């Protein structure tokens, strides 16, 4: 099926989110849609999926104009969507999830559903156990279930919205294999991403979207630098410019930290490390190997069951978040929408979310509104936060700008230690560069910096020293001069079972 988009425009008030977009997706084509966060990718896809009504323009399927009033219309027309956040019922099995919404009669036929799942997975090479509970299977497999759901609805055009954001490197490779298989069977795929390498690896054609417009189409042979330039409208450096670190004394020392999670599993096992002034310590590892818990314990969100955390010689292991923040820890949480900001709060309010009680912004019981407004204007300018006004709710900003709000807040007070977890996850190239620069500037000011990231590129770009975590332990601490393959081995458990990490 050929999908054609002609002059599609969507306005929100005065704001034009999509401006006369023209796009053609041929049958059996993997068409990559590349753009920064907030460029208008999601708006376009929501119109294709019947979630938003276009202000102007039309969608054609095999030359026939169609209008979608709801996702149901889009599904019936053969369009399938895999959202960034999965729409699965965790306590149901794979087969039950696939047949959800298409039960067909009052009696559930589990056997037929399981058979259908098996048929589909054989046909497209999507290995899934139909009887497994969704909550028990890894994220990468859950994504396969989402794809299966779309295929069970006879999707001819599959929209994958940032599908790799939640996957490990191995899972990304597997996903690309699946995409090629689907393509071979005639399914068209719209692949939304902002990762240049993935686009080059799997795309047939690449359309770059910027500020609501298609600014260019490229072949996969284009270089990463060319694509990045198209995306942000200027040449971007993918590596961070930085001088050698001037390493000072240890500022934060973790000694023999052990953490037991609420289910009784030991998730961090006897971990010790030190973060030194003027140095970036990168903590690398596949997600779920204890980094999340370790970082949370440094701020006092989780209490370690053993070990101590020393900040400038004081034991802060029993501090709560408030005292830790006041002691000079800056904290950029892993999941910004969950822990980093209040989405219904304005940019102005979120910029003082952990500063409102300082003498600068309050006199005890009352807030100093004028100061908070001035602070918002300053930060918006300094960090180039793209927002219609300081009163805009942060939830309605793009991912990159949401992260800039969090980063701007944490950088607006003197720090001894900066802890940043996945500082650029889901953030566009332009903002990545900006955030990386600020992190290095903070290092050069003599702050001890701890970066946790599952993106090796980011670790290599920033870190002066890399600690690799696997199965709750720091398996080794290495210099960034080390070969990537070797880090990969460490991340997989120092030569242990390969491909088993998830």
């Amino acid at each position, binding site marked *: 099926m050929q999908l054609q988009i002609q002059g599609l425009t969507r306005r*929100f*008030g*005065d704001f034009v989110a999509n401006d006369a977009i023209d796009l053609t997706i041929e049958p059996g084509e993997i068409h990559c849609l590349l753009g920064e966060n907030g460029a208008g990718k999601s708006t376009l896809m929501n119109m294709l999926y019947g979630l938003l*009504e*276009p*202000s*102007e*323009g*039309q969608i054609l399927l095999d030359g026939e*104009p169609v*209008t979608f009033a709801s996702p149901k219309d889009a599904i019936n027309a053969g369009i399938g969507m895999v959202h960034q956040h999965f729409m699965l019922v965790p306590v149901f099995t794979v087969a039950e999830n696939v047949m959800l919404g298409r039960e067909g009669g009052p009696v559930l036929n589990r056997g037929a559903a399981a058979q259908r799942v098996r048929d589909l997975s054989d046909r497209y090479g999507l290995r899934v156990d139909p009887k497994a509970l969704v909550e028990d299977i890894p994220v990468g497999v859950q994504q396969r279930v989402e794809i299966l759901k779309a295929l069970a609805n006879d999707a001819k055009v599959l929209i994958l919205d940032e599908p790799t954001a939640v996957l490990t490197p191995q899972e990304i490779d597997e996903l690309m294999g699946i995409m090629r298989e689907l393509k071979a069977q005639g399914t068209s795929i719209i692949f939304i991403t902002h990762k240049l390498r993935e686009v080059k690896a799997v795309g047939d054609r690449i359309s770059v979207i910027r500020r609501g417009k298609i600014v260019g189409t490229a072949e996969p042979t284009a270089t990463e630098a060319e694509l990045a330039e198209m995306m942000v409208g200027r040449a971007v450096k993918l590596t961070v410019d930085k001088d050698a670190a001037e390493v000072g004394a240890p500022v934060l020392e973790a000694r023999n930290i052990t953490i037991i999670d609420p289910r009784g599993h030991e998730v961090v096992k006897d971990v010790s490390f030190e973060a030194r002034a003027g140095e970036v310590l990168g903590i690398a590892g596949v997600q779920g190997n204890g980094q999340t818990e370790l970082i949370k314990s440094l*701020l006092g*969100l989780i209490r370690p069951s053993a070990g101590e955390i020393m900040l400038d010689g004081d034991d802060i292991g029993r501090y*709560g*978040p*408030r*005292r*830790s*923040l*006041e002691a000079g820890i800056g*904290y950029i*949480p892993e999941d910004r929408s*969950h*822990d*980093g*900001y*209040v*989405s*219904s*709060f*304005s940019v102005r*309010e979120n910029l003082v*979310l*952990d500063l*409102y*009680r300082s003498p600068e912004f*309050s006199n*005890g*019981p*009352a*807030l100093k*509104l004028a100061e908070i407004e001035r602070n918002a*204007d300053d930060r*918006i*300018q300094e960090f180039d936060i793209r*927002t*219609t*006004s*300081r*009163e*805009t*709710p942060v939830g*309605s900003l793009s991912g990159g700008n949401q992260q800039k709000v969090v980063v701007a807040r944490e950088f607006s007070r003197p720090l001894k230690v900066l802890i940043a977890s996945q500082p650029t996850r889901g953030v566009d190239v332009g903002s990545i560069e900006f955030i990386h620069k600020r992190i290095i500037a903070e290092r050069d000011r003599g702050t001890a910096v701890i970066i946790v990231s599952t993106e090796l590129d980011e670790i290599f770009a920033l870190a002066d020293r890399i600690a690799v975590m696997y199965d709750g332990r720091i398996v080794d601490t290495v210099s960034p001069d080390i070969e990537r393959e070797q880090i990969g081995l460490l991340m997989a458990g120092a030569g242990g079972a390969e491909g088993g990490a998830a």
Partner: protein
Amino acid sequence: MTKRPGLRLDRKALEGVLTTAAAIVLALLIGAVLMALSNESVIDSMGYFFSYPWDFFSRSFDVVTTSYGALLDRSLGSGEGLANTLNRSAPLICAGLGVSLAFRAGLFNIGAQGQIILGTLAASYVGFTWDLPGPILLLTSVLAGVLAGALWGGIAGLLKAATGTHEVISTIMLNQIASFGVLAYALGELKSFQRPDDDLGLPQSPPVPDAAAFPEVLGVHMGVLLSLVAAAVVWWLLTRSTLGFELRSVGANPDASRTAGMSTAKVFILTMVIAGGLSGLAATMMINGDQASNNASLVGSVGFDAITVALLGRGTPLGSVLAGFLFGILAVGGGAMQTTSAGTAPEVVQVIQSLIVLFVAAPAIVRWIVRQRRKEPTSTFAAKGVSA
């Protein structure tokens, strides 16, 4: 950057006001249908509807206009009526503020009823037993009511903070304990809570002496002014204070709030203490305002109406004041409908109140009804867009 707040926000607020107004109108319309259908002469006219339909419509119209006319006349038509309505609104406003404040912290405070009951007990006990000079007696009595309410609310907050007990469960249970435990004990067992000259068999306390009563101006007692001051204080608390910032933040995203160093336990406890205090203030409107005797039915359903007021007021102080006033009108005027020629049962008012809340709680229904009328222009626009 720009000074004015975002366009989206304004539109959202406007939409909220419109939905609320539509809910009230819709509830009044359904109330009108109920009045007509429960009236004997209208039912009679339905027997010959097809031969002479005019009777049905004219009688229905009469019933509805007479009833609503009487309602408005009794509640707003005279100085005395208006004073009465304001006095009736005051406790609803105060308790509504308490429920609203808790809403903003993400807490569903069902416990206004129990908090008010405790407030009435404390305020009346201090009022009729302590021997203090005039203004000081009033002040102490009011303070006692506020503190008792605050204490009762604070228990729910403490339980939530310390053990994670859901506030809906704990406040419902505290309501029962207040009503069937504390109040029943005080009225049944404590000599001081029984009128010495009581020969009715109904246990009730003496009213507070005049010294402990709110001064009145033109029949409106000072508690009305206090309720407006309370609304202003709650507004300040929510928008201008550090505690209000924490409260709203915890209500909207407790995880991010904790990460930002806020103590959710502190917010839960303080919010429930203040919310309970506001309910306690509502209690003083009855004890020190109306100089009512405390008995098993004094509080009635004010504590539950407060939830309705808060819902209708959308959790804002101004909204609570307006909703409290509206419910005051309905409470005062409702009885007047029965004594008219239409003889409408005052219970219709209860139905109208419930319908309003139902529509406010289910804005989708109202939006659907409003959209039916707007549908045509939208589709024309879309058609134009496609053909362009």
